């Protein structure tokens, strides 16, 4: 019974939020609003899935928000630069996507390399790269905003606004990433190894697990997922600036923890990270859809819910 409650905890919280939202506003459950919430959750959500692996393996990545801004900036610069040669069409969009994925992979690998091979604390490394990417995108934009050339906006727009069977691309990609992430965490050797490394890296090492490789890969996968999220972020507003992706890292980490993954590593659940992401975006959505709560207090309400979620986890552990 306690075990059931442990699994159901985050789901129950989500159901309560949905019930609250539906009772406060009739448009809450409309297809439009659901699409909006799910689509905008996709950026943080895709990143949070990668963050779940990093945290499960005992790591942390504070650089993802800045990394997203940097990748978005480079993607826009590359696409603007190639517009004349490639013309506004699929090849140009593909070039932008490849840029995002390559830069994401490299950025993740740099974090991972510094943390594993150079043996620097993850907190310090990613705090450093967070500042570096943030400065780089400000520099690339010359203090202002990098904007996608107007000529290609229509070509790239469908990446965020389009979809199949009425379901938007961000939702589809988010769902795919979440399902694959969940399967890898639970059923693939990599997920098992990540949990072992986060649980006790000495035991993992003595069990012939290549600890550094597992750690490095969690950061690389996170970098790739940041790239994927950015691919869909750029078409939304067609711009990137120094204010892009601010605090995304904390939202992603909060979602992971609300979901029940342990911050100190050793145990992670992808599906409940997804629920954590949805809980966070629903709070915002509900507060925007209702009157009566001062908008000054949005942050406080989120904070209370994050802390409550963690307290609930501890209660559960004491029971189990």
């Amino acid at each position, binding site marked *: 019974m306690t075990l059931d409650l442990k699994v159901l905890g985050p789901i129950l919280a989500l159901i309560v939020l949905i019930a609250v939202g539906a009772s406060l506003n009739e448009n809450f459950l409309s297809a439009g609003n659901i699409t909006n919430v799910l689509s905008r959750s996709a950026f943080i959500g895709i990143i949070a899935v990668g963050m779940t692996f990093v945290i499960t393996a005992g790591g942390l990545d504070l650089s993802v928000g800045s990394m997203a801004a940097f990748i978005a900036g480079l993607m826009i610069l590359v696409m603007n630069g190639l517009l004349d040669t490639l013309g506004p069409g699929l090849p140009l969009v593909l070039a932008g996507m490849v840029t995002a994925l390559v830069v994401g992979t490299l950025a993740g690998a740099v974090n991972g390399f510094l943390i594993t091979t150079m043996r620097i604390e993850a907190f310090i490394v990613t705090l450093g790269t967070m500042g570096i990417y943030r400065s780089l995108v400000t520099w690339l934009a010359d203090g202002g905003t990098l904007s996608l050339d107007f000529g290609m906006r229509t070509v790239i727009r469908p990446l965020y606004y389009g979809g199949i069977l009425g379901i938007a691309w961000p939702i589809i990609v988010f769902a795919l990433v979440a399902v694959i992430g969940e399967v890898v965490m639970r059923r693939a*050797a990599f997920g098992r*190894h990540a949990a072992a490394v986060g649980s*006790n890296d000495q035991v993992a090492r003595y069990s*012939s697990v290549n600890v550094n490789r597992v750690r490095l890969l969690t950061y690389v996968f996170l970098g790739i997922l940041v790239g994927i999220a950015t691919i869909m972020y750029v078409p939304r507003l067609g711009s990137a600036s120094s204010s892009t992706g601010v605090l995304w890292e904390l939202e992603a980490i909060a979602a992971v923890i609300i979901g029940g993954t342990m911050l100190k590593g050793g145990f992670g659940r992808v599906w409940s990270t997804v629920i954590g992401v949805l809980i966070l975006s629903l709070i915002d959505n509900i507060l925007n859809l209702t009157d009566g709560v001062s908008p000054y207090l949005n942050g406080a309400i989120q904070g209370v819910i994050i802390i409550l979620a963690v307290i609930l986890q501890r209660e559960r552990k004491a029971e189990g």
Partner: protein
Amino acid sequence: MKLTLHQVDRSFGAVQVLHGISLELRPGEVHALIGENGAGKSTTMKIMSGYLSPSAGEVRLDDAPVAFASSQAAEAQGVVLIHQEFNLAEQLTVEQNIFLGHELKHGMFLDKRAMAERAKSLLNRLNCSVPPGARVRDISNPDKQMVEIAKALSRNARVLIMDEPTAVLTEREAEVLFQQVDRLRAEGVAILFTSHKLDEVKRISDRVTIMRDGHVVAQAATAEMTEDDMATAMVGRDVSSLYPARTAPVADDTVLSVRDLTVPGHAQGITFDLKRGEILGVAGLIGSGRTETMEGLVGLRRATGMVNGRAPYPAPRAALDAGIAYLTEDRKERGLLLTKGMRENLTLQSLADFTGLLIDETAEDQALTQAISDFDIRAPHRAVAVGNLSGGNQQKLLLAKTMLAQPEIVIIDEPTRGIDIGTKQQIYEFIHALTAQGKSVIVISSEMQEVIGLADRVLVMRSGGVAGELTGTDITEDKIVRLAMGLDGIKGAA
């Protein structure tokens, strides 16, 4: 001060774990409490020291019934339990640890001078030379033990309860501890300790209480019992043949040849061979480089030299692929994931064998069923977190995990540390069974009897080098000790 348990019962939920325990700790007497893992020793000690209260029966202090509300309440009355895992703050100094929570004050401020003097005199009383300003993380295990005792004495302990104080000590270090125990006994302290090492019980205790399945099965003056009597009472059957007789012959072909293996900072120029089906014992004092040599051999440490004609393995995976597995001495910190279940632990080392694209959980479950029956692992249920298993069952699981990788050569570091005698015997039988299958085993052990009882050949290490090699009837306690301590220069007595 006298501490008495009178007809104490204790239940956890529906399960009764102690049945009518009566025993008496007298001033100036050392009392040994022995029994297999799970016999109820820990619960008994916790009731004595206020960590648990009895379900029925009485705890008496100088014949007056007492009910300790907590361990602090017991300490205030002079009853102190020293845990097997040290309860010290590693980052603080010896002195800070001794007075932790009971700091001496001078008005508002800490009275550092008084604490320094008091710490020095306590340590002197224990004949311990560790400086009070040293950080605990930098001092040796026996010194930590002394700090724990000093901490207890600083609280005016009159009854000292020690849970397996020698488990992490070498025989020589244990001897130092016993000298201090002798002193405390002379000062009139009542002492209770537990140990799996019956020779220690013989050496140090005045009375012995033997428990089995929550009952006291024997209680006598130590002088009246032999070690065999004690073992028989603990296990409930005859264990005179602790070490099985060798049946499998050692083959002539060499399966492992190590030449000039050097692990920087720990061992130099280690050279030895291992034959198929052989049990090679590795003896030596703690710090002689035994563990580090083997870790270097399997790629857990950087090493140079030649292993089977090639450079040492770069990583444990490479050693395992070559059929060499190392089983660590530290099963809690290096061997097993204590918060995970048995299945995850069992297959961690051999996960590739259970993985196509995804992990085959059915096959894992079958492997666990097989391991539970092959290695006689006793767990309350299959999903139990490994940290909740007894030490003996953890060790069996670790053995099962290692064997799942199907190594040809198994290096076992301290195979029976902290394990009861019945399980020890089982583990010795497993080791023999391995050699019967043509596998070779290297056993590192601090227990002299274990090396003598198991090994076909013994390598004695001292200060990072091979001090000598003993075979056949030369494998005696005396010869091993002389080599380990560097008392004579015999080299390869065989």
